[in-house]
């Protein structure tokens, strides 16, 4: 099975071949490296940019004004902070101009912790991103969703930010991307650039197919009647694992929702599940003060106050200036499996 980052690369190949992508660019995105996470190896329209995140976003917007379809990369979301005003502008171009200009750009950037990245390779970005009206924000937690969300992001005529969970980039999917070869070693030989000299290397692209994951559609990855857990990105597979373990150990059954789209989010899916269980936990690793999960909590309280059996809750990253390199720091800064499992157990077993 393809890894998440291979899925992104396959999606970009599909995008530049069939969906009109004209430019894939950013720092180290073109040859020889093809991206620090290899997301852009072998792509026909990939090129290296100056080390200038504001320039990258500006270039993308300019390309879009002139009818191109750019996909740009910010190497790590940790380095996107100096572009926030340009992100705001990209999000408001259509609105500010009364529909005169669309802004069909895709910005992809690795987000979150889990790669021992210390202060500046561990940031999360979705809470900041969720405040950018006019954008759509997605975050896949597996390879197939990464492929399908990338295709939707490319095809959507609005600015779409694809947050790629750093910790999951090398994780293999459990489901095949349509057109992917059976043998993962074969896929590697076809599309991964060789280590060392790459001059003359060309990828052999498998005949990948169209596969869209709709924006605004969550995936119910586990079903159960005891409680609801909503997550996305790095913490999603941890929630799934915790749900499986609690089913084994305590016979507790959870609805686990992979939100996939941060904005627009699938309110219908959250609402339906809360109506069923009356118990909800929202898990993400962004810092806890003014966290996107708090917005979801507010919606839950507004709409389902009288449907809730117990206190609704969140499990989020600590409000601290950074994530320290020593793993004692990281483990104790952002949610890990044991805390998630315990929070889920407590939620499901609290007396109503």
């Amino acid at each position, binding site marked *: 099975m393809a890894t998440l980052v291979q899925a992104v690369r396959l999606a970009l190949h599909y995008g530049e071949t069939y969906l009109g992508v*004209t*430019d894939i660019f950013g720092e180290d995105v073109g040859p020889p490296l093809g991206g620090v996470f290899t997301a852009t190896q072998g792509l026909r329209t990939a090129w290296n*940019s*100056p080390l*200038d995140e*504001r*320039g990258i*976003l*500006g*270039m*993308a*917007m*300019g*390309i*879009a*004004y*002139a*009818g*191109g379809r*750019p996909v740009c990369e910010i190497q790590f979301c940790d380095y996107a902070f100096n572009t926030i*005003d*340009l992100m705001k*502008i990209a999000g408001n*171009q*259509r*609105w*500010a*101009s*009364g*529909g*005169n*200009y*669309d802004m*069909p750009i895709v910005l992809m950037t690795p987000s979150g912790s889990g790669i021992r990245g210390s202060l500046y390779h561990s940031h999360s970005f979705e809470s900041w991103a969720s405040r950018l*009206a*006019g954008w*759509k924000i997605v975050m896949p937690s597996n390879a197939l969703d990464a492929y399908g969300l990338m*295709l*939707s992001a490319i*095809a*959507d*005529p*609005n600015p779409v930010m694809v947050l790629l969970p750093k910790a999951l980039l090398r994780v293999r999917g459990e489901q095949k991307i349509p057109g992917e070869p059976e043998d993962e070693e074969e896929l590697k030989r076809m599309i991964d650039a060789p280590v060392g000299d790459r001059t003359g290397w060309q990828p052999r692209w498998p005949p990948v197919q169209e596969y*869209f994951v*709709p*924006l*605004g*559609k969550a995936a119910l990855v586990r079903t159960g009647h005891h409680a609801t857990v909503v997550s996305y990105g790095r913490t999603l597979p941890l929630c799934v694992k915790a749900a499986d373990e609690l089913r084994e150990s305590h016979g507790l059954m959870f609805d686990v929702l992979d939100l996939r*789209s941060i904005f*627009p*989010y*699938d*309110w*219908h899916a959250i*609402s*339906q599940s809360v*109506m069923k269980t009356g118990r909800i936990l929202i898990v993400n690793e962004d810092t806890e003060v003014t966290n996107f999960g708090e917005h979801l909590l507010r*919606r839950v309280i507004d*709409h389902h106050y009288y449907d809730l059996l117990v206190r609704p809750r969140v499990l989020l990253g600590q409000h601290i200036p950074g994530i320290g390199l020593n793993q004692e720091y990281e483990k104790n800064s952002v949610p890990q499996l044991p805390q998630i499992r315990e929070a889920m157990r407590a939620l499901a077993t609290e007396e109503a």
Partner: protein
Amino acid sequence: MAREIVQPEENGLAVLSDITSGEYSLPAERCLEIYRLMVRARAMEERMIKMSKSGEGYFWIGGPGEEAFNVPLGLQVKKGRGPDYDYLHLHYRNSGTLIAMGMPVIDGIRQMAMTWTDRHSRGRNFVGHYCVPEWNVVPVCSVIGVAWVKAPGTAHVQKRYGGDGITIVVGGDAGTAEGDFGSCMIWSTRPGNELPVLMIVMNNGYGISTPAATQHAELHIVDRGKPFGIPGEVVDGNDPIASWHAIERAMRYVRQERRPYMIEALVSRLYGHSSSSGAMRVKDERDCVAEFGQKLIEAGVLDEEGASAIRKAALDECEKALEQALKEPKPTADDVRRFTYASSFHDVVYPDDYTGLPNGD
């Protein structure tokens, strides 16, 4: 009858004489065309300043003092839609450019009056924040500096497309301190990927209240282009003839060489920064409209009567435009969310436009 152009039979000349300024000249007809446009642009701005004081509009910012450069710029733009034509990333003092390109005065007034019929922003943005996709005028943005980083993007598409369309980007002197100005030079001169960007700095010597000389040591802003191999020149932006030629030279270079060029136009700021600083007429700065009118009178292609007829026509046009704009529909509460999103087949929550927070429980 008021005299606009010296007729050949009146003065015995075979052809109309050119109007000269220093080493440059322009045909008299062209000068009269520029003058009329300058007067119209000025009249529109002054009418809008009144609106800001009468309550028919709120904030005013604009370009009185930049007409001598902005009008010749607008007249020389290759006007149209798509990469074959010039892209314009303008600042908020470019009324003269839009008027010269053919924008009716009422299109400026409507934005000041915040009507739903405002074609630039539907009554959402400040005045002078133009957006005309038919002419590649991308939305003017209040954020200082950002135009410099967006301009290479349109130029990148133009370079790849072929043709002779260029990207024109305009900003103030103080705004060149933003890193985005440096970004523009870097992105436009990547070796092998040089871009057709005409960088224009309108140097009025101030950023709001701060004199440029207190913050900037560089002698000329265009000097910053030198290490990048960006040719540049400083031009008297109060002189439409000198400005015309500087713009013509610059455009010829950028169109043909497909590389950047920089102009620094020294201009006036005749009503201060904006209505926030009172929009009071400044007395000690050159007034290009008055100067050019006088020059044309002295050259004998215009007389006092002709000049006042031009002024009167412009004022009448503005009054009529305002009268009309005030009758037009205003945005309503139902319009707040409109035009947030373009329709998408791939969005199940907002297939058409934004409709408020996700719902459906």
